[in-house]
Structure formats: structure tokens, C-alpha cells
């Protein structure tokens, strides 16, 4: 495994770089889209259950099936990374729209009432009171989405673009364990580091959650 890494470091690094891009760009797109969608699910209560159902249905579409069908739907090349980005953005959106809605619903109504009483208008109340209070739930969802994106990217290798997944298919074709092992280890490490970073961000931006757990 070490030998393999030594002689193929450029290939492995390129695969890792592609993997990072293919995992994080959709994460960003999905989360950004999920914020308004999740908000609508709370603002208009009747939208909440349709939102849950839609997210369940999207989530039940197998990733490989989505990867291979998207080129025909979008008119893109089968080997275009756009397919992977769109598919993973969809999954992220499905998971996060629901999480954002749940997060906003978890905010104590007495706090929003207090904010209203203090003269906060709806938009400012949302940005300065409700969103920050929903952050613990939202960031927990971001952790799940980030980690599952990282592991899903490699499935793309079956259609030719999969970041570290390319090491799997290559190793399989050559019946050679080293590249696969390198790919698996790097993929797990990438997920672990990402998770750790999000947890640190969460601790930094929501200091009040720690204060209450310590007192309890």
C-alpha cells in the first residue's frame, strides 16, 4: 500500500482533489437551496408534509440509478461530472430541506414571540433569532449530508467519474488490492476530517448549547 502510494502519488492526489470537489460543491448547492425550501415548509404549514414525502421519495432513488439516468434527463454527456454534482445536490437538498424545516420548528415559540414583542420584523427575526437557534439541528443535518456525499461520490466511478472511486474500479480491473485500500482509507479519512471540522464549527457558533448541557 505504501509502495503504491509512493509511485502513484500524483494519481491519488488528483483523485482526492476531484473527490473533494464532487462532494462539497453539491453540499454547498444543496444547503443553499434547502434554506428557502425548508423555510417555506415552516412558513406555510400545509407544505410541511408534502415536503417530507418528496424528500423521502428523492432519498429512496438509488444513487447509481440517478447517476445513469441524469444524462438523458439533462442532456449532458454520460462522462460529465455535472451528473454527479446534480445528483448529489438533489440528495443534499432532500435531506436538508427537511432538516431546516425541523430546525426552525424546534425553536421555542416563546423566543420568537419575545423577538416580535421587541419589534423584530419577520425577516430580521428569521435571520437573527430563528436561524441561529435552528443551527444545532441544521448543522447535525449538514454532518450527515457531508459524510454521505463523500461516500456516494465513489459510486460515480461505475460511470467513469468518481474521484477516489476511480481507484476502486482500477484496483478491481487489475485485481490489485493496494489502490482500493488507499481509496477506502482516504475516503473514510476525508469523511472523518470533514465531520470533525463541522463539529468544531458547530461548537464555535452555538456556544449556548454547551452551556446548557454542562449545567444539566
Amino acid at each position, binding site marked *: 500500500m505504501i509502495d503504491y502510494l509512493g509511485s502513484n502519488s500524483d494519481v491519488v492526489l488528483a483523485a482526492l482533489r476531484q473527490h473533494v470537489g464532487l462532494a462539497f460543491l453539491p453540499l454547498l448547492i444543496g444547503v443553499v437551496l434547502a434554506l428557502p425550501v425548508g423555510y417555506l415548509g415552516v412558513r406555510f404549514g400545509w407544505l410541511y408534509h408534502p415536503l*417530507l414525502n418528496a424528500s423521502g421519495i428523492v*432519498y429512496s432513488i438509488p444513487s447509481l440509478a440517478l447517476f445513469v439516468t441524469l444524462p438523458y434527463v439533462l442532456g449532458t454527456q454520460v462522462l460529465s461530472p455535472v451528473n454527479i454534482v446534480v445528483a448529489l445536490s438533489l440528495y443534499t437538498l432532500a435531506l436538508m430541506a427537511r432538516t431546516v424545516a425541523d430546525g426552525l420548528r424546534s425553536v421555542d415559540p416563546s423566543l420568537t414571540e419575545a423577538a416580535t414583542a421587541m419589534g423584530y420584523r419577520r425577516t430580521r427575526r428569521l435571520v437573527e433569532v430563528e436561524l441561529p437557534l435552528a443551527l444545532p439541528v441544521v448543522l447535525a443535518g449538514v454532518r450527515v449530508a457531508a459524510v454521505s456525499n463523500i461516500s456516494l461520490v465513489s459510486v460515480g466511478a461505475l460511470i467513469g467519474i468518481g474521484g477516489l*472511486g476511480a481507484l*476502486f474500479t482500477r484496483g478491481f480491473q487489475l485485481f490489485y488490492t493496494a489502490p482500493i485500500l488507499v481509496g*477506502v482509507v482516504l475516503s473514510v479519512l476525508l469523511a472523518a476530517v470533514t465531520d470533525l471540522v463541522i463539529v468544531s464549527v458547530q461548537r464555535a457558533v452555538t456556544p449556548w448549547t454547551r452551556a446548557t448541557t454542562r449545567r444539566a
Partner: protein
Amino acid sequence: MGDDTPYLLDGSHWSGPQGIPHLVLAHLGYTGLALLCGLVIALPVGLYIGHTGRGSFLAINAGNAGRSLPTLGLLMLMVTLMGLGFLPVLIALTVLVVPPILTTTYAGLRNVDRSAVDAAVGMGMRPWQVLWRVEVPMALPVMLGGLRSAALQVVATATVAASVGLSGLGRLLIDGLSVNDYGRVVAGAVVVAVLAIVLDLLLGLVQRYAVSPGISGRGLRRRGAPVAASGPDPELA
């Protein structure tokens, strides 16, 4: 077999070893076996950790660790180590099942109202009875939620079995791609998605009717008794 007939409507695709019913059966076979193996491994461990509270670190972190393992990589790693065959596929899919079952079993048991457990102990129940008569029935909604998401994941992921030469619905996707047969790829994607959705609905029904009415509140409404609003979906708990 004309190019204009949609793949799914062509009768010749519905029979033989490469026919859709055969592929669906193989697919469900992989899924069922992996779920069974995963349950056999994860359920006892989850029950033990949830009941005793010992080793909770393991149960809490299993979920995230499992999610981060790329199944395709694991599968191909197993194949290069053990050779082609069904066993590597079963192992890779079982590894997918264990974390959600373990985590939700543990979380379900831990979230059981402590006063109910105390009352059971006070009534003289043995630890075994407390587990089976109090903790498991009360944790069942959460545990079944875990089973449901595990089943969904495995049904979706079992398509990768085709990438190492096995059967299942992945065959339609992989073979369709390799010969550039658009109709076959889409047919495969549709059948897998429908299978996943049907399985999810079925398990949703099981979840609904396997849980004791005293816990789910099912049937109380008809008798006019006030029912507490059902909490957030247990699936994400």
C-alpha cells in the same frame, strides 16, 4: 424488440435468467440476506448496549463510521481479497446494515422513559423481562425506523453487485451503460426506484401496525380519547 418499444413493455424482457422478474428476485434476495445478517449481528449488540448503557460510545459512533465507508470500495476490496462470488457482496451489504440498526436500537432503548423501567423493576421483573416486555415494545417505533432506513439503503446499494459480475437490478444499469442502451438503463433505474419506494411503504405499514396501540396512540382517536400529538418522525432520531 424494435427500438421503439419501451424496454419495460417488451415481453421478452420479462422472462428468462436475464428477465426482470428474475433480476428483481435476485435483488430482493441480496437485500433480504444482508438485512438478516445485519440484524443477527447488530440487534443483540444494540440491545445489550441500550439495556446496560455499557459501550455507548461504540453505538453512537457506529452510525457515522458506517455512513463514511464507501460500499463500492469495500465490495471491490473484498472481491480482490476473496475472489468473485456472493460472499463479498453479502459482507459489503451487511456492513451497510449494521450501523443504522445498532444506532437506532441503542437510541430507542436509551430514550425509553426511565420511570417505566423503574416501575417494571419495582414490580419484580427480571432484567430479561424488563428488556422484552417494557424496553423493546417502547423502543420499537425507533428501532423499526432504523430497520426501514437500513432496508432502503441496502435495496439502493445492492445495484453495485452487478459491478462485480453478480445479478440483481444493477445488471440493467451496468449492461445498459456498457452497450449504450438508453432504454435498458432507464428501465433499470425505474424498477429499482419503484422497488425501493414499495419496500419503504411496506415497512412503513409494518412500523405502524407492529407498534403496540398503547404506544402509538393508534385506535384511541376513534374512542374519542384525547391523543397527544405524535412527536417528530422517529426516523431521524
